[in-house]
């Protein structure tokens, strides 16, 4: 008798594959998204590694904070963050229990955040106004067109993924295309949630951000906290950990911090092996072997796979240098930069 899984393999349904029109439409939609995401924040972040004078100026700008006029308690926000908040749609749901649960990246040009109330969830996205027509056309072609609905003072176009309870509303707000997406029992329920969206002032909006969001002014402090309990190689410069003028979530900042330390150890390990310095290689491998207990990675482990990947490299350094779980023969040297996001030194 053959193995059940093998029998199932033989029962694999025949597939025809996509026709030319489907490929063309999907490619066009992807390219429209690519074109609509001009100047994403990670592109600006990468600039920090290119021009040293610009780095100094940019980092200096990050620590400048401003106090909003008329704010009695003197709450200070990063200047760059205020610029985002002043420009972008500042939308919250005007109903009890709703809060911002995710705001992992945003800048003046592009942003995403999630609002939730128990099991209810609404994903908000803002993009440049220039992509509005493409966004609507694409949805008219792919989704059920449910007409219009009021949303934050605008008339939003309302759509539903065919056969689902997955609704999307798209509208123009000043220089932005705004998209709201969520599951709802029916179109009326989604319309009701949309109708509760309202725009708030800068300070209210900034105050609504979740604790996991790290505003630029706090990044240095948070980075130092994340380094606690991590052995760093001699000469490690924590100020070189990439800074950003965009809002970050702890997970992403944690990946930068743990990755910077891991990259430094890996580079020492590679250098020591090349020079035949067994003690140096052992020291680096031993330091990386402690990564299983690095608090920042333990914290991140439930949220994504970055810790697991880093631990694979730590394991490889303590054995023969071949990364476990990768393709046969995949070595630390060949792949660590891409895998862990190491910058070239």
């Amino acid at each position: 008798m053959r193995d059940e899984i093998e029998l199932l393999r033989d029962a694999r349904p025949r597939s025809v594959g996509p026709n030319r029109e489907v490929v063309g439409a999907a490619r066009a939609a992807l390219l429209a998204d690519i074109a609509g995401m001009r100047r994403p924040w990670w592109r600006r972040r990468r600039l920090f590694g290119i021009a040293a004078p610009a780095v100094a100026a940019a980092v200096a700008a990050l620590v400048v904070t401003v106090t909003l006029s008329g704010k009695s308690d003197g709450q200070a926000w990063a200047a760059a963050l205020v610029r985002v908040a002043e420009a972008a749609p500042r939308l919250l749901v005007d109903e009890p229990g709703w809060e911002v649960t995710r705001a992992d990246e945003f800048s003046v040009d592009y942003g995403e955040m999630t609002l939730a109330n128990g099991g209810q969830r609404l994903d908000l996205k803002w993009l440049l106004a220039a992509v509005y027509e493409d966004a609507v056309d694409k949805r008219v072609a792919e989704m059920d067109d449910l007409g219009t609905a009021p949303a934050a003072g605008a008339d939003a176009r309302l759509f539903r993924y065919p056969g689902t309870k997955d609704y999307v509303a798209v509208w123009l707000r000043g220089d932005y295309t705004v998209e709201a997406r969520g599951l709802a029992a029916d179109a009326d329920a989604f319309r009701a949630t949309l109708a509760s969206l309202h725009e708030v002032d800068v300070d209210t909006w900034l105050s609504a951000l979740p604790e996991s969001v790290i505003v630029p002014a706090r990044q240095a402090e948070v980075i130092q906290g994340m380094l606690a309990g991590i052995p760093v190689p001699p000469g490690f410069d924590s100020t070189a950990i990439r800074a950003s003028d965009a809002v970050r979530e702890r997970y992403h900042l944690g990946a930068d911090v743990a990755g910077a330390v891991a990259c430094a150890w890996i580079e020492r390990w590679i250098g020591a092996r090349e020079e035949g310095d067994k003690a140096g290689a052992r020291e680096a491998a031993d330091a990386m072997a402690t990564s299983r207990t690095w608090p920042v990675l333990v914290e991140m482990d439930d949220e994504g796979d970055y810790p697991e990947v880093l631990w694979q490299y730590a394991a490889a350094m303590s054995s023969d240098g071949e990364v476990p779980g990768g393709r046969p023969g995949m070595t630390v040297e060949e792949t660590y930069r891409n895998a862990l996001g190491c910058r070239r030194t």
Partner: protein
Amino acid sequence: MGETRSDAELIGRASRKPELFGVVFDRHFATIHRYLERRVGRDGADELAGEVFRIAFEQRRRFRPVYESALPWLYGLATNLLLKRWRGDARAARALARLQAASLNGDGELEAAEDRLSMAQTRTQLLEALAGLEPGDRDVVVLVAWEELTYEEVASALDIPLGTVRSRLNRARRAFRELFPDSGDEPVTLIGKPHERIRDEG
């Protein structure tokens, strides 16, 4: 130029040159479409395949190139999208029913009519059993049996530990065995890499 680069390199460079992501699309769109077609039928695949790549582009900074190919990651995104859109949806059941009615994948070999009937019945039973699995177990089985991913690739795609892949497969196998009790007489095998059989320690 971009054609000779690995997916990992293209996705890494796409941060500065986003249009390079188009090469990743060209390489893998048909594969992901076929996967979705096997799961939910052609209409569903037409609806979802493009969205997989748009999600992939949006989340490209989360891509960790444990493998040079982006396929395991794309399979994972496609599977997550299926769960989000189709779980608990009557469309999924209808799609699987259509698959059951589809023709055998016989690759031109002409079997005797009786054999073909028997194979069709077996196939229908298998697909029914597959439809009855827990969604997480079904994902693992399909990725191993139909898409021929290694255990490690499935673990990476679904962001689950390797041990979970094995336990889900074993659970699925037990469910299938109820349909085909004779299989218990043979040593239990696990399917690893395509065409590689690994003896189960259990």
